[in-house]
């Protein structure tokens, strides 16, 4: 798992089609190791039917997105929580 991944930045477009705010600046906590970090810093693997994002600390899968023609599936079971900055 060295040269085949990109950053969580690459999730921005797919997530912005689903959510009204930019989730890549959210802070997520990994269910595997408890590491907290920006979604933009996850390791993203796109060489799969969906997009797989792994924790940069322990490499557990924390987020998966699968896009169909008219729907998307979002699997967040590897994420404890997302802290999402909002305009007050």
């Amino acid at each position, binding site marked *: 798992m060295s*040269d085949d991944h990109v950053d969580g930045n690459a999730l921005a477009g797919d997530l912005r089609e689903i959510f009204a705010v930019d989730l890549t600046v959210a802070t997520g906590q990994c269910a595997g190791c408890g590491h907290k970090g920006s979604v933009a810093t996850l390791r993203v693997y796109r060489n799969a039917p969906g997009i797989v994002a792994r924790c940069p600390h322990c490499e557990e899968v924390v987020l998966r997105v699968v896009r169909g023609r008219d729907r998307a599936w979002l699997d967040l079971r590897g994420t404890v929580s997302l802290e999402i900055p909002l305009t007050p």
Partner: protein
Amino acid sequence: MARAALPGRLTWRVAALADAFDLTKSARGLVFDVPGWPGHLPGQHVDLRLTAEDGYSVQRSYSISSAPDGDRVELAVQRVEDGEVSPYLCDVLPVGAEIELRGPVGGWFVWRPADRSPMTLVAGGSGIAPLMAMIRTRAAEGSRVPFRLICSVRTPDDVMFADELRRRAREDAGLDVRLVYTRQAPEGSPEPPGRLGVATVNTYAWPAGFTPQCFVCGPTGFVETVSDILVALGHDPRRVRTERFG
């Protein structure tokens, strides 16, 4: 497919190729007209989608290399020889043709001119694209935030925006540009070609004590190496922002 745009959510926009030019032998600058473009922050990217007549579609992400300029968006596209999308964009797509763009996206790898921290920018090859947007926005806004760019390329022929960088290094006060050649240095270069290492980063990046923001963009291996060097030199990992393009 027609779908009403929900407020706040992003959908695809039709964009027409307005201009195209060589950046290097293997990279093209593509300027798109995107009606209704909401503007962007330097460092953001777009997703680009091509759809064939039979409905087959492919999607890629490209960094925006231009400063905000109305409905115009410039992308720098490196031709990947056996690629599915970049050879088409670089060699086939005619001016006037339409594609779809979704963006601007990404709020992490962006420079906000209100942030006064000194900036260290490190580019590997075509990783210069989003950093170029920052350099151009700095100039457009008359910002005086000090910028240092270290740009690693294989040979002198691989420098994107070479003329503009040369000009800006002269004219944009507070912008330093350092080119590092990994395979072949220009004639008369004082340093032999070689990979970007600790010594170069230590010499040409802002010292950690200045608490700069560091933006590193390039191939995955390059970004790993440079961000490790920056952290080893004492930079706060939270101030080292990366964009790997695989």
